[in-house]
């Protein structure tokens, strides 16, 4: 089972190439229209008191590709995630009385259905399933039960059916089979009878992702899937994410690790101060001056921990840059 886990070597799968090709002709500007958008978001703003955490006027996510959402801390990425998955309500949501004007109310549609105001449960039922930045493994349930909980269409989740086991035992067996299959893919099978709380942080991330996949989502939203995961595991996680895309799923993820973003994303959306400031393929976006300013910094390609790079020359150069900036600011 584990041998056919794809790894992120230079080999680009056919599906990957197709995904990249599908957005090849899209102009590289914020809020651009996509040829086949699965998720469209309009006028979504969220204010916390006087602070505007999210203010996205228009964003489309292309179907069947891996889209990365990047941005500095406090850019509103996670809040934006919460807003589109129904865990939070936009300040610009339509209200019965008052509220925004008709054309300016928050609106988001997913797979042809309005998902703006229906709540997290129904959003998930539509096939948009998310994970959390701080993992939410159900600690005092076993790993296998965590997985089973993710499954759809279990009639035994109705109280009246639940009392009679034969009515749900068959579906339960199917679910268990599927869960074990997924656990094997994520190398968690030998842990299936352990309590989820006993897993390590990285394993919890894997479990959460596997659990989300139990419901066969149309689109999976990963909030910092790599945070706290060791490099070897990161490598296989990347493979899993690409495999999801190759299976026809749409992936939207938040991440800070630029190597990873560069590696697997087909499209990158950059947020800063709540707005979408740039969009485009990874390579292009990372050269965008707006992105460098807001997020990456001028030395994002330099390893700051590497002392050998900090020669006198570099130090002088940096000092000169600082002075130049200071004078520029002084003039302004």
């Amino acid at each position, binding site marked *: 089972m584990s041998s056919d886990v794809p790894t992120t070597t230079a080999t680009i799968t056919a599906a990957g190439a197709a995904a990249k090709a599908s957005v090849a002709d899209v102009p590289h500007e914020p809020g651009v229209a996509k040829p086949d958008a699965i998720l469209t978001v309009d006028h979504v703003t969220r204010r916390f008191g006087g602070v505007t955490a999210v203010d996205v006027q228009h964003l489309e996510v292309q179907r069947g590709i891996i889209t990365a959402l990047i941005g500095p801390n406090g850019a509103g990425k996670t809040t934006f995630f919460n807003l589109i*998955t129904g*865990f939070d309500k936009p300040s610009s949501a339509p209200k019965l009385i008052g509220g925004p004007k008709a054309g300016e109310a928050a609106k988001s549609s997913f797979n042809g259905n309005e998902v703006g105001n229906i709540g*997290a*449960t*129904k959003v*998930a*039922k539509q096939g948009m*399933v*998310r*994970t*959390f930045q701080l993992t*939410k*493994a*159900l*600690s*005092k*349930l076993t790993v296998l*039960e965590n997985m*089973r*909980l*993710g499954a*759809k269409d*279990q009639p*035994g*989740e*109705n*109280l009246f*059916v*639940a*009392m009679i*086991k034969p009515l*749900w035992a068959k579906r*339960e067996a199917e679910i268990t089979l599927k869960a074990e299959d997924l656990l094997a893919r994520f190398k968690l099978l030998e842990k299936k009878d352990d*309590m989820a709380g006993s897993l390590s942080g990285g394993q919890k991330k894997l479990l*959460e992702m596997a*659990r*989300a996949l*139990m*419901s066969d989502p149309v689109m999976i939203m990963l909030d910092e899937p790599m945070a706290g995961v060791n490099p070897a595991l990161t490598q296989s996680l990347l493979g899993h994410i690409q495999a999801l895309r190759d299976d026809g799923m749409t992936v939207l993820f938040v991440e800070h690790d630029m190597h990873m973003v560069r590696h697997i994303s087909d499209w990158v959306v950059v947020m800063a101060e709540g707005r979408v400031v740039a969009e485009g393929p990874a390579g292009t976006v990372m050269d965008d001056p707006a992105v460098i300013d807001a997020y990456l910094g001028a030395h994002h390609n330099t390893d700051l921990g590497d002392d050998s790079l900090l020669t006198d020359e570099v130090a002088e150069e940096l000092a000169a840059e600082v002075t130049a900036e200071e004078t520029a600011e002084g003039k302004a």
Partner: protein
Amino acid sequence: MDQFLTTLVAILNSAISPQTAALAIAAIGLNIHFGYTGLLNFGQAGFMLIGAYAFAISIIGGLPIILAFLIALVAAVLFALILGIPTLKLRGDYLAIVTLSAAEIVRMVGRSSLLTNITGGSNGITGNEYRGPFTDLSFFGDGRIDFGPWNYDATGSNGWWFIATAWFVVALLCLFVWAIMRSPWGRVLRGIREDEDAVRALGKNVYSYKMQALILGGVIGAIAGIVYILPASLQADSMGRSMTYFIFTALLLGGAATVFGPVLGAIVFFALRLLVQGLAGQFVPGTIMNGQQTEQFAWIVIGITLMLVVIFRPQGILGNKKELSFDVK
């Protein structure tokens, strides 16, 4: 030695008494709330009162016993809806506050002198007024049945008929809880107990499940209320805050989130109290502690036991430490 035997017989009698069964049933209901779903219901006694009043008043009003029983269940469902609709969308602590005060409201309304001709006010309703139809159902016949240390009337109040039906209900409910908690429905509840948002993210309607759990546990609480008053009398003050506390103690003692925990907890709860009271009465001279004081002393020991259980064995007697223990740290 004689006195010790008396204590032992008293314990054995209390172990099978309908009152113990009623406490066990109420704890089974609370177990669905607290043990499996994580709902903090501090008003289980309120559900008992609602059930007891609905049952007794319906029977006094001349309705058949089955109908009275159903009315009690419906009343509990309504009470759960009233409590749950505004609070289940909020954080758990709010349900605790609302249930606590709602149970007090029920008690205060029940004992209000304005309602004396319906609820009997603070004097309550004597058992003879509503016990008749239930006693008539008995097929145990007349006379006495002696069985080891247990000597009771076959049918009379506090007799075998009451004991047998009460424990039959306990057994039935244990079976029911076992059946639903091994099902996917029970799994969703346990998921909600661990993390609501995670379950919501998997497309389950958390609000609906919490409501179902609240109603189910509340209805079982109402049944407990009926079982509690059948051999005794209905008095609002006998099902106040202290009753909720006894139910919680029984549940935690036996082990929350287990099928038999509430039952064992209820038996141990009464046994422990009688044991302490008996031993104190036997060995502590009356000049230090008189009869009334030994009873209070027994309650103090129960309180300390609850503290010790929560600190040193948070999963209770039967609980699985991995599955449920309180985050005491």
